[in-house]
């Protein structure tokens, strides 16, 4: 059956994500200064601070759906900028995917990301190659689904997601923005990595790190 992922591990993942974003605040600000309104680093740091409080304070819910919903609510009101409703919607939709109650298996984890991606696309109306977080998340989810179809282990599935997310993030350097503030720049947006695609990459980077090493505890 393979490894089941519990709320404790999801919490650990999102704490790692929050820490990674906070470490990279200046980097995100720099990227957003080049092609946006320079607020992605500050906004994400504020949201991640709120998320850390929520994850540390909260009565320890064991239910995956409730847990993801509370994450979503925190991001919706805590981030500001377009990233708040977008990340919020990602987790809000992820919360509606099927679980075993207090855990998800690898197929369910993959589906959870798929639900989040679908919600994100409905909300933001972006496609791949628009130079947004979709350019990271969509290839990552597709890579997870492909690896899952060939019955790979958790480590392999998440490594594939991370690699695809990384390629997608780097690909945003080469393309012109068609969504968000950067789209006002037209062809001048080429040559710059998208800040949203970058903050989204860290979701998969930290997932690969945390879910792969927590098998033993």
């Amino acid at each position, binding site marked *: 059956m393979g490894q089941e992922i519990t709320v404790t591990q999801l919490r650990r993942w999102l704490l790692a994500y929050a820490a990674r974003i906070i470490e990279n605040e200046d980097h995100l600000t720099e990227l957003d200064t080049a092609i946006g309104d320079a607020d992605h680093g500050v906004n994400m740091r504020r949201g991640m601070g709120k998320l850390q409080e929520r994850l540390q304070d909260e009565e320890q819910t064991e239910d995956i759906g409730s847990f993801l919903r509370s994450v979503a609510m925190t991001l919706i009101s805590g981030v500001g900028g*377009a990233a*708040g*409703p977008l990340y919020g919607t990602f987790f809000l939709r992820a919360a509606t995917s099927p679980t075993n109650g207090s855990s998800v298996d690898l197929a369910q984890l993959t589906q959870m990301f798929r639900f989040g991606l679908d919600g994100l696309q409905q909300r933001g109306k972006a496609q791949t190659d628009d130079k947004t977080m979709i350019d990271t998340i969509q290839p990552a989810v597709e890579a997870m689904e492909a690896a899952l179809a060939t019955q790979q282990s958790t480590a392999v599935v998440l490594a594939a997601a991370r690699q695809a997310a990384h390629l997608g993030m780097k690909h945003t350097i080469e393309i012109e923005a068609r969504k968000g503030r950067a789209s006002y720049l037209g062809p001048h947006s080429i040559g710059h990595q998208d800040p949203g695609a970058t903050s989204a990459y860290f979701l998969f980077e930290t997932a690969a790190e945390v879910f792969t090493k927590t098998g033993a505890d």
Partner: protein
Amino acid sequence: MIGLVIVSHSAKLAQGVHELAAQMAGDQVGISDAGGLSDDSETFGTDAFKILSAIEEVWCDDGVLVLMDLGSAVMSAEIALEMLPEQQRQNCLLSNAPLVEGAIVAALHASLGEPLQAVNRVAEAALSAPKLANTS
């Protein structure tokens, strides 16, 4: 009589548009504003929960029209709408109207007791009203 909600990234802008619109409407039309973040209204941004409470504040059975500034204000307002009970959601409309002109026109027509869809139509038409006399 319908209610109006003014949504902006800036709390000051939302309040200012609210005041302008209220001047047109007298005190008959319920108007509320939702600008900035819930716990930090000095920060630019929009917050679905703040918008949700603004909708609830002016809620009436004739419906509520929500006017927004730009970008993520729309996404936050959509999330707020999804959080409303089904019955209220059907009577709550996000407007494509320009914020300032739209709010003023909407307030005026709301105060005349016009229904939700009609108020939205005139507010959205404000998008194409020329500001300069010689641009016709």
